[in-house]
């Protein structure tokens, strides 16, 4: 079987680039919706802030795991 296409070079950086798409969109949605919620109901600011930060930390965790995945899964 002959090779049709091949990716050479730094696979880790390509992997991280792809892995950063999801958390980037996720963080954008979290804070975008959070700001909208604050605009609609300013007196709920404390509650919204708590939930925003919780959502942010969970999403950011995925981005940082993507950063170390090349080292975790070996060469």
């Amino acid at each position: 079987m002959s090779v049709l296409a091949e990716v050479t070079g730094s696979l880790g950086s390509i992997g991280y680039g792809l892995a950063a798409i999801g958390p980037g969109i996720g963080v954008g949605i979290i804070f975008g919706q959070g700001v909208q919620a604050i605009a609609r109901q300013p007196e709920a600011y404390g509650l919204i802030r708590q939930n925003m930060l919780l959502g942010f930390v969970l999403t950011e965790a995925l981005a940082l795991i993507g950063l170390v995945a090349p080292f975790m899964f070996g060469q």
Partner: protein
Amino acid sequence: MPAMSEKKIRPEDDGRDFANAAWSIPSYLLSGMILYGGAGWLLSKWTGVVAFTPIGLILGVALAIYLVYRKYGR
């Protein structure tokens, strides 16, 4: 620590809590990963079992998330 939503906040301190939280969250995640991931890596070099490194990393992430939850999410 009283829940963040009930505490009376002076106007000058209002931005502080959020800014503190927002900047320390990635910092906690990174340091949890480095600390427990590094410990896992050292352990795997010592025992030879390669699996300890990712276990340590995930443990560090989980602990950091728990720390953020207890500190900022209540």
